[in-house]
C-alpha cells in the first residue's frame, strides 16, 4: 500500500503517539506522522490524538496550520478521528478553556465531570451502544480505558455512552467525523477492535495475505 492512502497521525506534541503507532502496527495498518498538513497522506483518514490542556493543544494545532485546514479537509470528505482530547477539540468548545473555541465539527460543549466522583475519570469503564453505527460493532458493555476530566453530554445522536457520575458520550460521529473519548490504543483487545473497525469504515484495512496462484 502506498503512502497515498495511509492513516495520517497528527503529531503536535500533545499526544502519546508511541502507543497509537504500536496498536496500528499490531493491526497491520499503514500510517505516517504529520507535524504539518503538507506532510499528510494524500488520502485516507486523519487521526487527531491528544492529551493535556484544551487551550494548549488548540494553540499547537493553530501554529502548525492544522486548525485552519481540518474543517476544509472534512468538507472535502476526508475522514477525521479524534481521540480523547482530540474528540473534545472537535466539539464547539470546552469549559476547560472558555475563551478558546473548538473546531465545531461535533455539536456540543465539553463540560467538567462531577461533582461527587473522582476527577479525572481514570480507569476502565463499560461502554454501551445508544445508536447503531455502520462502522462500529455493538460494544455490549465492553470495557475501555479512560483518562479525562471533561466530556460531552450524550444526545440522541450519540453512538456509545459510558458513565462516571453521569452518562457521557464515549463515541460521537457526524458524517465522516468521529470522536472517541476512551483511549482505544490502551484498551486491550476491545480497543484494538474499535480502532480496527472505525478505520476500516474510514477506508483503511490491513492487506489480505496474498493467495498463491497456480
Amino acid at each position, binding site marked *: 500500500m502506498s503512502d497515498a492512502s495511509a492513516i495520517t497521525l497528527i503529531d503536535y506534541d500533545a499526544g*502519546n503517539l*508511541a*502507543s497509537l*503507532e*504500536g*496498536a496500528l*502496527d*499490531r493491526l497491520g495498518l499503514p500510517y505516517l506522522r504529520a507535524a504539518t498538513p503538507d506532510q499528510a497522506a494524500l488520502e485516507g483518514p486523519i487521526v487527531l490524538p491528544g*492529551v*493535556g*490542556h484544551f487551550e494548549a493543544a488548540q494553540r499547537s494545532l493553530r501554529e502548525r496550520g492544522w486548525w485552519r485546514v481540518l474543517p476544509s479537509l472534512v468538507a472535502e470528505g476526508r475522514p477525521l478521528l479524534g481521540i480523547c482530547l482530540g474528540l473534545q477539540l472537535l466539539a464547539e468548545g470546552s469549559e476547560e478553556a472558555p475563551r478558546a473555541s473548538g473546531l465545531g465539527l461535533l455539536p456540543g460543549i465539553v463540560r467538567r465531570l462531577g461533582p461527587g*466522583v*473522582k476527577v*479525572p*475519570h*481514570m*480507569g*476502565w*469503564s*463499560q461502554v454501551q451502544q445508544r445508536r447503531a453505527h455502520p462502522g462500529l460493532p455493538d460494544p455490549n458493555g465492553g*470495557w475501555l*480505558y*479512560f*483518562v479525562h476530566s471533561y466530556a460531552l453530554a450524550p444526545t440522541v445522536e450519540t453512538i456509545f455512552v459510558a458513565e*462516571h457520575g453521569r452518562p457521557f458520550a464515549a463515541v460521537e460521529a457526524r458524517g465522516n467525523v468521529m470522536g472517541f473519548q476512551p*483511549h482505544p*490504543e*490502551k*484498551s*486491550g*483487545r476491545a*480497543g*484494538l477492535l474499535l480502532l480496527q473497525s472505525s478505520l476500516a469504515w474510514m477506508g483503511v484495512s490491513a492487506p489480505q495475505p496474498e493467495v498463491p496462484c497456480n
Partner: protein
Amino acid sequence: MPAKRIIPCLDVKAGRVVKGVQFKDLRDLGHPVELARRYDAEGADELVFLDIAASLENRGTREAWVRDVAHELSIPFTVGGGVSRVEDARSLLRAGADKVAVNTAAALRPALVSELADAFGRQCVVAAVDVKRDPDLGWRVFLKGGTEPTPRAALDWLCELNELGAGEILLTSMDRDGTGDGFDLQLLEQASRLPIPLIASGGAGLEIHFLEALEHGADAVLAATLFHEGTLPIPRLKAYLAQNDLSVRI
C-alpha cells in the same frame, strides 16, 4: 465507578525484569517486553515497572525498553525509579509511559510532585509510599527502597501528596510485603479517605486478600511474586472477584 484494577509489578534492572528477595539474589525473568505481552494477554489492567537500580548511566537503556513496551502493550503502564526532575519524567512519557512513579525524590523535595502535575497533568503522577508500623508512633514513611526510616507520619504525607498534585497513591506496607499474609486493611481504610485512587501493595498471598483490600477502600491491587510464579493466574483472580460482586474487567 471504574473497574477495580489488577496490577502486576515488575522490577527492572539494567533493562531486564528481575526477581529477588530484598533486592538480593536477583533472578532474571526476561525482557520487559516479553512480560508485558504475557500480562496483557492474561488480562492485567495496567502494569508498573520499577527500575530498581536507576542511574544516570542506564537512562538510555531505560528509554529504549520503555519505547518497546509502549509499542507492544495495549494497556497503560507506569514507570518509576530515579525520577527526580521534570526532565526525567518527560523522557519516560515521551518514550510512551502513561504515568511516572516518584518516591524518595518526592519525599526529599515535595515540590517535585507539583512540578510534575503542572507539566503533565496529575493523572500522570503516581506517588509511591513505603510505610512501616511503629508500635508507638503508628505508620511511618520509609525511603530508599524501604531502607531508610523517616519521622514522617504516613497519613500526613499522603494528604500532603494529594494537595501537591499526586494523581494516585501506590501504598506499600513493608510489614506485610513478602509475607503473603494479606494486605494491611487498617492502613488501606485510613488511606482510602483521600480523594485520589489508592493502589494497595504488600502482602498478597491468596485470592481473598485481594477481595479484602478492594472492599477496604483500595481502587487497585498490586502484586509481583504471585503473578510472576503463576501461583495465582490473573483470569482466575478476576473470576473470583467477579463472583464476589466486584466490578472487574473480564
